[in-house]
């Protein structure tokens, strides 16, 4: 008879769930970590890690069968032979797109921490204050100073490489040494700095890749293979498997249960607390219940809210946390896939060695430091410079030996960037249960009704024009600004749907990520976000999770939970 009583249950084993499991077990709680998908063991199960391109049956191209089974994932890079099996099968896990929404999901131990982009930036002071100042959505119940020590803490453990720049828009952190810009990026950086008098900067990006080993965690430094998204045996990028899971396991307090789809939280209306969870075993279709004092919901933004929507429906027909009328609302993503690129002349005698796992970053410069645009918020630019390879077009060489020899050598230096823009929280952008449609396990699916609006569309013009202007001012030739096409969800930064706030009438969670209507339920993944900033969000989920876990354990110890 398996144990059904734990101090804490953590739902989901991705970036934030891994952190919840680590923090809670290290503080002495007995934790059950539930994961809806299969197990993936560090090193052993990284099946594609060491494959060379010729060893993939289709050289990393997509087969018809892959495309047929992935009507959503085929829309962008997630569908590939090298990451095959790490993103879900869309046929097994459908959802309803009221408007096009690309939902790229990873249902396995580690979740999307295995394939994430690893860009790791702190929100700045303004990010926590802008909603209140501008009358958008609701105010965050916390400020930068509340999160600052937790950023510091998670950066140290996760291993974030970066340079200290002393910029208000992009606060410095507890960094490992930065990766290097290549010589073209350095030159362009200095031209930009000069042209914009330091008001725009090109810096090495901040990434959860180890520029130096972390021997305490058994993690080696980056080997510059740039195969991160297949899993890394060196543990050289942050993932649940490389970092938080081994720490949690080492305490002896963790039980990991893969193949466990949480169908609802069990809610006790007398105590106004969750008493545990109900799960469906994804392999056997058997139902089980587990009990705990506290529950951490880290099932990924939309799925955490799906679980809340299916819980305590005898009391609130729209689910636990719906009393505010905001559960499922205020969906955000980062809108991107527009920017510019061009040729850089004069570095024909320069090349690079090694495949750096990250690029450069141009921090936000719009609507800050006295700049004022006809839209709110701003964007950052992410990109890199490199020499073109054999996939380049050489118009004057049609076929034959000259073409072959030319393509065997590196081509022109190019530089490019895509902007990542902040998306405002709109009440109308929402998810809800579509009970007409069922997934492979007979569970009702989500409907997603999200679009970008005027503020984002205005911002996109700047995102393209500014990228082009920056490059031109830095002497880049043949600059082309483009919109490569964005649909909500493509950023894979789903946020909102159970936002934090100061008032139970307008928010789902309080300042400690507790559900107002069930204070022993903590939601610390992207669902909790009150606004989006323009920086990549995962580091903020880590910090919020560590902070909430610390609070939760103190409350348990005091007998309050």
């Amino acid at each position: 008879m398996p144990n059904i009583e734990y101090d804490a249950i953590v739902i989901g084993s991705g970036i934030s769930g891994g952190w919840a499991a680590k923090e809670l077990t290290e503080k002495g709680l007995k934790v059950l970590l539930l994961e809806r998908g299969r197990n993936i063991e560090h090193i052993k199960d990284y099946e594609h890690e060491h494959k060379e391109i010729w060893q993939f049956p289709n050289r990393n191209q997509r087969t018809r069968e892959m495309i047929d089974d992935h009507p959503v994932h085929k829309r962008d890079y997630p569908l590939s032979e090298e990451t095959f099996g790490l993103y879900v099968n869309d046929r097994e896990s459908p959802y309803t797109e009221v408007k096009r929404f690309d939902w790229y999901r990873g249902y396995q131990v580690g979740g999307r921490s295995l394939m994430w982009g690893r860009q790791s930036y702190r929100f700045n002071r303004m990010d926590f204050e802008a909603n209140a100042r501008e009358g958008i959505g609701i105010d965050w119940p916390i400020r930068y100073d509340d999160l600052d020590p937790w950023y510091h803490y998670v950066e140290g453990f996760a291993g974030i490489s970066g340079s200290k720049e002393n910029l208000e828009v992009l606060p410095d952190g507890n960094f490992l040494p930065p990766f290097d810009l290549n010589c073209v990026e350095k030159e362009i950086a200095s031209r930009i700095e000069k042209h914009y008098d330091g008001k725009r900067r090109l810096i090495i990006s901040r990434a959860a890749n180890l520029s130096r080993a972390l021997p305490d965690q058994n993690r080696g430094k980056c080997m510059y293979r740039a195969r991160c998204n297949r899993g890394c045996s060196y543990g050289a990028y942050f993932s649940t498997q490389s970092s938080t899971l081994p720490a949690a396991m080492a305490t002896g307090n963790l039980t990991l249960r893969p193949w466990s789809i949480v169908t609802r939280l069990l809610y006790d209306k007398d105590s106004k607390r969750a008493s545990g969870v109900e799960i469906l075993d994804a392999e056997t279709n058997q139902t089980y219940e587990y009990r705990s004092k506290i529950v951490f919901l880290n099932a990924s933004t939309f799925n955490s809210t799906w679980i809340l929507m299916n819980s305590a429906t005898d009391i609130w027909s729209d689910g636990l946390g719906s009393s505010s009328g905001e559960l499922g609302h205020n969906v955000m993503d980062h809108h991107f896939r527009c920017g510019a690129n061009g040729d850089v002349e004069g570095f024909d005698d320069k090349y690079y060695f090694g495949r750096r796992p990250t690029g450069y970053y141009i921090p936000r410069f719009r609507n800050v430091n006295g700049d004022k645009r006809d839209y709110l918020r701003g964007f950052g630019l992410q990109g890199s410079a490199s020499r073109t390879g054999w996939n380049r077009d050489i118009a004057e060489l049609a076929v034959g030996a000259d073409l072959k020899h030319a393509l065997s050598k590196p081509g022109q230096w190019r530089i490019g960037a895509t902007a990542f823009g902040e998306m405002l929280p709109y009440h109308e952008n929402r998810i809800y249960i579509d009970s007409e449609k069922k997934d492979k396990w007979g569970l009702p699916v989500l409907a997603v009704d999200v679009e970008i609006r005027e503020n984002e569309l205005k911002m996109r013009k700047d995102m393209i024009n500014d990228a082009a202007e920056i490059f031109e001012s830095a002497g880049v030739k043949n600059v082309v600004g483009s919109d490569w096409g964005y649909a909500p969800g493509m950023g894979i930064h789903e946020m909102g749907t159970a936002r934090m706030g100061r008032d139970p009438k307008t928010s789902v969670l309080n300042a400690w990520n507790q559900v107002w209507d069930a204070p022993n339920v903590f939601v610390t993944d992207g669902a909790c976000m009150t606004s989006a900033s323009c920086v990549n969000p995962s580091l903020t989920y880590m910090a919020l999770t560590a902070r909430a876990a610390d609070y939760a354990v103190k409350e348990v110890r005091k007998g309050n939970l």
Partner: protein
Amino acid sequence: MDRREVIKLITIATGAALVGGELIFTGCTPEKKPTGDSLFGSKELDLLGDIAETIMPRTETPGAKDAGVAEFIAGTVDRCYFEPDQQTFMAGLVTIEETSRSRYGKQFGRLTGEQKTEMLQDLDREARAYRRPDGVTAHYFTMMKQLAIYGYFTSEIVQKQVLRHVPIPGSYDGCMPYNEGDPAWAI
């Protein structure tokens, strides 16, 4: 940034978006799958081999035949292409054979190296000038050239002997000297 560099592979060596299984920007919908055996018999494989070798010929470095490019192309068309692209591709092979016979009175495989090159140069010009209407497949020669180049440069022999293949660099130098003629990195 690697996961954001999706844009970098959308054109390949012909100035056109990559054709076939990567055809993600056109919203093309799956058609009925051909079942069973390969579309390519030994005759088609031989012709494909000659076309690929003309695009990427053996010189002091290996050519398309050394790199098994014809088999790669056949596998891609069989497994990755949807039916409309398959039809265009296969019809293109027939057209090449017919053109060769009407122009030189011989099958493509029997032409001299110069004649083969001349024919494919003309086809390259034709393919580049081709303006593809919405919902219509790319020019068959665009497909052939892209697959020949992709298959050539992703083969083991070319990655290791023509390009410089370093699976585990172990370090990074962002300002390494480059001497004219040095091969590109394989990855």
